[in-house]
């Protein structure tokens, strides 16, 4: 009887179910979308061959430039704002004090809500006459509560709502990562005479490096697919002021029923998302992921 070293261990066959799923629900649709870009189709009947017409339309689409710019702006703003809030909040929430536990639980509530519910909630809050916007607007210099109706303000309002939705998740990441930091590091730092702020900069932050990278990748790539909240809250409006690329794609496909051109936009989104995640992981050394705890 011969026992191979590998017997009972995962072989290639173990990956088949996952690979099959990935192929059916990710690869095949992607290929189909690319094929659709060469057709005209209104979603009913059969697609008809259109050659490069949809790709050429890219250069005549007056909304595309704005959509790309808005998506880029939303990505950067979301990353900066959400990181700046989630990181300190996560570190704070990592403390074992009871009041922090109670407050953290409240902070995490948005995590339990679906995007659609959040968007509906906020559109009620942002009603300029009867919502919270009417009360809070004057304090913030928006006398008439017209947050989602002013082209310039609508975009930032959307960014705030998105931050409200995602900060809890990233806070949770930072909270658990902070709790993983060995106590000995803080004890050593205390013996060296480091105060709390110094401990944060010299112990906590370096220890959170990999978490920062993970959270950033999720935020950056995720922000390219923000969509549901914007759809329900502003539907890309007023005019096209919040019509980010994913929404532009959706509206082109499912409101204008131009599936061919919407597929072109989908391909652009796919390429942009893949490129962004490659760049981020490379630049940050995410792939190497060295241990931050050598010698412990």
């Amino acid at each position, binding site marked *: 009887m011969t026992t191979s070293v590998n017997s009972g261990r995962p072989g290639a066959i173990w990956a088949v179910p996952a690979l099959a799923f990935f192929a059916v629900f990710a690869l095949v649709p992607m290929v189909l979308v690319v094929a659709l870009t060469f057709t005209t189709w209104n979603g009913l009947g059969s697609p008809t061959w259109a050659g490069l017409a949809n790709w050429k339309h890219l250069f005549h689409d007056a*909304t595309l430039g704005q959509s790309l710019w808005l998506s880029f702006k939303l990505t950067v703003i979301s990353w900066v704002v959400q990181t700046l809030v989630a990181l300190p909040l996560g570190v704070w929430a990592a403390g074992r004090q009871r009041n922090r536990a109670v407050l953290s639980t409240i902070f995490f509530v948005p995590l339990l809500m679906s995007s659609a519910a959040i968007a509906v909630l906020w559109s009620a809050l942002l009603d300029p*006459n009867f919502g919270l916007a009417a009360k809070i607007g004057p304090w913030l210099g928006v006398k*008439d*509560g*017209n947050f989602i*109706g*002013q*082209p310039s303000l609508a975009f930032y309002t959307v960014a705030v709502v998105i931050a409200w939705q995602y900060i809890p998740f990233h806070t949770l990441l930072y909270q658990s990562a902070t709790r993983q930091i060995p106590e000995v590091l803080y004890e050593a730092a205390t013996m060296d005479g480091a105060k709390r702020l110094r401990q944060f900069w010299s112990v906590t932050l370096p220890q959170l490096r990999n978490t920062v990278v993970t959270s950033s990748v999720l935020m950056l790539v995720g922000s390219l697919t923000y969509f549901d909240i914007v759809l329900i809250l502003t539907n890309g409006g007023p005019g*096209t002021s919040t019509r980010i690329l994913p929404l532009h794609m959706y509206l082109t496909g499912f409101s204008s029923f131009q599936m061919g051109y919407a597929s072109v936009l989908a391909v652009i989104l796919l390429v942009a998302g893949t490129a962004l995640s490659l760049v981020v992981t490379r630049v940050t050394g995410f792939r190497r992921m060295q241990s931050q705890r050598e010698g412990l």
Partner: protein
Amino acid sequence: MNKVENTAINSYNKANSAQVSLQTFVNDPYKQKLQTGLGSPNAPDIFFNWGGGNLEQYVKAGQVFDLTSALNGDSTWKKSFIPSVLNTAKINGKYYGVPVEGVQPAFFFYNKDVFAKAGIKTPPASWNDLLTDVDTLKSKGITPITVAGSQGWTELIYLEYLLDRVGGPTKFQNIVDGKAGAWKDPAVVTSLTMIQQLVDRGAFGTNYASVNWDNHGTQTLLSSAKAGMELMGSWEFSGLLGTFPDVIKQNKIGWFPFPGGIPGGTGNPKDVVGNPDNYLSVTTTSKSRDTAVDFLKKTMADKNYVKDLISIGQVPAIEGIQNQLSTGSYGDYNTFVYSLVKNSPSFTQSWDQALTPAVSQSLLTNLQKVFNKQMTPQQFADAMDQGQ
């Protein structure tokens, strides 16, 4: 609605030993089902549609039976429908459908308390009256007209009416027909300029672009006396009845047609816009085409069917039902809606239903930009002309 239709079908089946049955679907799935079903061996004999552009695509595909001779051959039947409504199912001079439900024109709703407090005695009868009332209400610190600017279709009603009042129904017909330069017609630019003048005048207040119709934003403003008027489809009445039944029951809401008397305007002030009706059409492939036509003849203008429709708050597009309407519940409202449509020389279908989905999309976003002063009327005309 289905109950009324089933009653009609059952009584027809009994009287004619025929086999008519009703299959129902929700709005969007229905449109998909219809698109794939027509032309297939399982095609229905009769199908429900929206007339105008919606029906035209099936007509173009040769799937709809021409009802012209059936209608012309039975003039009593034809004359029982209000002509401007029946005409929405008229494509290239031929009739392809008959009205099946209630009419839905758009007009102004107003809060009677607000008008009384501001000293406005009668609803505005002309464009100038409307502007005067706007100024009066504004000076009292009330939003003169509420519009749900976060949803472009509510703003579209203004353009639909103004273009009709300025240049008559042919201007929009040119757009539907795809005539070159139809969007750049001076009447379009004039109408949009009038919209921006209303905006500048403060007619809609300042935060209208954040107001949402689905959240009952405008209904709340109107019922709580924070706004004076709202331009909306006739469905707003049942909407208000659902959300704020008290204001309807206490008779606080009034209504008046979109005013005429626009300087230089050539349109007839009696024209209306909105959703004329829904229609029933017969398929060309139907094996029992004669029975289908017979069913439409015997049912659509039938006394009992009309009575049942009225009993559920619909105002059918049938001639000579004033008395029946005025004696039912909300008789004054139903009579108003009825005579508005009956006396209209032309009933323009809502543009976003009459045009293709892609054009409607750009129309709605561009119109929002006009309302928000991000686009000039001329830029709008140029953009729509280029299909942006």
